[in-house]
């Protein structure tokens, strides 16, 4: 029995530093997705908002905030927060409602207005909050964790800073072709190498920026799509939102230590690989079936790790893949055809939704100059702070 749902509409507000409210970005993305679906807002039976913790009370109740901005019309409303996985959880909630028969048409919206520089914890003294503690006790910023992973890859797999730079070069080349991307210019390996070190071995151009932005999807039942005359829509076949297994042995944001691996033997594979595995199992397909992937390149080095975690290559072979050009546009398995976070920057609750927007356009064959020819299946992969898995499989 198919558990597919249809993606009838996809829309974004361009990423950047626009200095406006997240509500404006979300509303613009929503209206764009609705126009893409050919549906009026009043036809939407349920709205799911991905929350932003930076934008105060309206951000914590994003579903209702977007509904109000679009005009109250009595739809069912849901607000979800799962850090970087918020968008995937919003899609997951929408899908569950559709498959349960609670709604035929659901609008999913995520938007953010991020501060410049490092993400920081909420104010006040909160010694029981791991996110507060890692800053107070260690000054451990997000890039510090990315750098720990990068350095370990260098020690274990022989990756080099030049390999990391190739990821930026590749993603910038794709982002150049994406009208929604914040950075739309070519970057050379020399420019990466000349940028300032933020957290050794990572440089400024190895690390994604923080941005404003918004993304939205109109999701419907397959019956609704067919009744609208869309016989062959892009379909979401899996949404993975798994938690890690105990013991988690890879140091992860915002933790100061891993679990102990002595009381219980760790299972094979990392948390990140389990995110993709759950999505593949649910979708009934594997990495060999993919036409493209969108992965969370918070750092260039992390993108290489995702290649391995989503099964595009064996452990330690990520750098080889980027060196071969396999993951570039025109390569065997293009990754981050949108330009990735390297070109967009982080707009936390929007990014997992934006990844699915890119899959949608690619699977429709409407991605323009960055189109992957004959794209039939794609996966998105992402990870939210505090153990939120996030992967979506879409097919055509």
């Amino acid at each position, binding site marked *: 029995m198919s558990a597919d749902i249809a993606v009838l509409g996809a829309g974004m507000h361009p990423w950047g530093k626009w200095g406006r409210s997240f509500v404006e970005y979300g509303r613009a993305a929503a209206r764009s997705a609705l126009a893409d679906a050919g549906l009026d807002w009043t036809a939407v039976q349920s709205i799911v908002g991905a929350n932003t913790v930076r934008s105060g009370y309206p951000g914590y109740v994003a579903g209702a905030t977007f509904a109000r901005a679009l005009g109250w019309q009595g739809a069912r409303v849901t607000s979800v927060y799962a850090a970087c996985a918020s968008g995937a959880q919003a899609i997951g909630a929408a899908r569950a409602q559709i498959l349960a028969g609670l709604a035929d048409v659901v609008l999913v919206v995520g938007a953010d207005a991020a501060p410049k520089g490092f993400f920081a914890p909420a104010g006040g003294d909160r010694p029981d909050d791991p996110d507060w503690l890692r800053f107070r006790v*260690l000054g*451990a*910023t997000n890039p*510090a964790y990315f750098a720990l992973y990068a350095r370990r890859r260098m020690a274990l797999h022989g990756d080099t800073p030049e390999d990391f730079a190739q990821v930026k070069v590749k993603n910038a080349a794709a982002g150049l072709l994406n009208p929604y991307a914040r950075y739309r210019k070519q970057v050379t390996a020399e420019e990466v190498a000349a940028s300032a070190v933020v957290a050794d071995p990572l440089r400024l151009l190895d690390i994604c920026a923080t941005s404003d932005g918004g993304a939205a999807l109109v999701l419907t039942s397959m019956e609704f799509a067919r009744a609208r005359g869309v016989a062959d829509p892009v379909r979401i076949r899996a949404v993975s939102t798994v938690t890690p297994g105990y013991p988690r042995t890879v140091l992860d944001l915002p933790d100061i230590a891993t679990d*102990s691996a*002595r009381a*219980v033997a760790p299972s094979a594979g990392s948390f990140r690989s389990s995110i993709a595995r759950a999505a593949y199992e649910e979708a009934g397909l594997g990495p060999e079936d993919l036409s493209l992937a969108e992965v969370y390149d918070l750092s260039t080095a992390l993108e290489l790790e995702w290649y391995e975690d989503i099964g595009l290559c064996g452990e330690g072979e990520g750098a080889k893949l980027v060196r071969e050009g396999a993951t570039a546009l025109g390569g065997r398995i293009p990754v981050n055809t949108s330009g990735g976070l390297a070109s967009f920057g982080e707009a936390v609750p929007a990014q997992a939704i934006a990844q699915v927007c890119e899959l949608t356009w690619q699977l429709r064959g409407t991605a323009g100059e960055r189109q992957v020819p004959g794209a039939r299946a794609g996966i998105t992969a992402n990870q939210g702070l505090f153990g939120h898995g996030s992967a979506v499989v879409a097919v055509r």
Partner: protein
Amino acid sequence: MARTRTPVVSGWFTEDAPDGGGFRLLGTRCSACTAVFFPREDTYCRNPHCPGGGELAEVPLSPRGRVWSYTDGRYRPPAPYVSDPAVPWEPYTLVAVELEAEGMVVLGQAAPGVGVADLAVGMEVEVVGGVLNEEAGTAEASGAPGASGTVWTTWQFRPVGGAE
């Protein structure tokens, strides 16, 4: 009047371990399933396979481990990290250390003078006490003589045999 030495977080380390081992990180150990937690977990055991009914008892962690990875902070981190914006930023080094006996990786700052060039993955390091930052007391801040205030203490890692 001397500044008071205060742990940046209470109960995470001791300068005087009960076995005479000097400075040690402190975790807790579940008596039912032997799982060890750092930072200390005092309210519940987080092992899903734990039979339950155990007590979480304080336990000093291994004084030595091996470098899992390391990096530094070339830009000033945001609050609540304490640093004086009037003073030029001095990068700090972060080390993630794998403790063999506990099977866990613990993150910490490196001891003063230990930079990324002094470290390598797999290198043996030891935990030592150190100062995270110092805060002047109100009397001192207002110009009165004396050195009241707080010295915030923390744990640091350094290569065994000392830094170069």
